[in-house]
């Protein structure tokens, strides 16, 4: 044990806590999926979800694009740290993550009402799906990373 004199002051302790948060965030980022992978999943999904209504046969073939993404995911996981299973994370289940997840589900269902038939409509729908999907998925990822940092620094079990 250290004597009370060796304990850090308020400013030092605040600085140490900041460094703890930075290191944990850095590890969470590097042990997670690459940003390009997430973008690719959203981009392919936006195209598939749009074309499945307008041009179904092409959309089914486009689902094959998930194969290189899966391969990318497998290769990206090699040598990366294994994320810890979240034990108790109320911020994940009741906070921003769950909120953005439900918005995602809502977005997918709302976009089904947009019946794009002409080429320019299809392109516009793909763009809208991609942009809104990226926004929501990025927010979900941020909330998940935050929950992982909190869980790691507060859960001893």
């Amino acid at each position, binding site marked *: *044990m*250290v004597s009370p004199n*060796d*304990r*850090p*002051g*308020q400013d030092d*302790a*605040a600085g*140490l*806590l900041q*460094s*703890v*948060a*930075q*290191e*944990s965030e*850095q*590890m*969470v980022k*590097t*042990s997670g999926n690459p940003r390009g992978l997430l973008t690719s999943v959203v981009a392919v999904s936006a195209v598939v979800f749009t074309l499945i209504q307008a041009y179904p046969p092409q959309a089914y073939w486009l689902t094959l694009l998930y194969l290189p993404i899966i391969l990318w995911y497998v290769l990206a996981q090699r*040598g*990366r*740290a*294994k*994320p*810890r*299973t979240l034990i*108790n*994370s*109320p*911020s994940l289940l009741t906070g921003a993550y769950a909120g953005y997840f439900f918005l995602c589900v809502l977005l997918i269902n709302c976009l089904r009402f947009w019946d794009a038939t002409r080429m320019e409509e299809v392109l516009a729908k793909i763009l809208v799906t991609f942009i809104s999907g990226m926004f929501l998925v990025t927010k979900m990822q941020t909330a998940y990373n935050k929950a*992982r*940092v*909190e*869980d*790691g*620094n*507060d*859960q*001893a*079990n």
Partner: protein
Amino acid sequence: MIKPTSKAQFDELIHAPLRLRICASLAPVEWAEFAQLKQNLGVADSVLSKHVKQLGDAGYVDIERFAKLGRSHVRVSLTRIGRRAYVGHVAALREITAE
């Protein structure tokens, strides 16, 4: 914020800046490869080895060496005791800032 599950307790061993950073890096993961840990912390092999060994001697981290496809790997992870000590130390730092 989640309520810490470990009692606030200042830990002299973890308190050293680099060892605190090592524990903070290992906290959100089950294990990390030595190479990734070194890259994240931006320190030399020897420095990291020294501090990881000190944490290992205290039973705070587990060091696993193995070979895969002809390459040797070293995985570092926080043990249950180490995680408890780390969470307690972070809680103690929070208490100091709240005073």
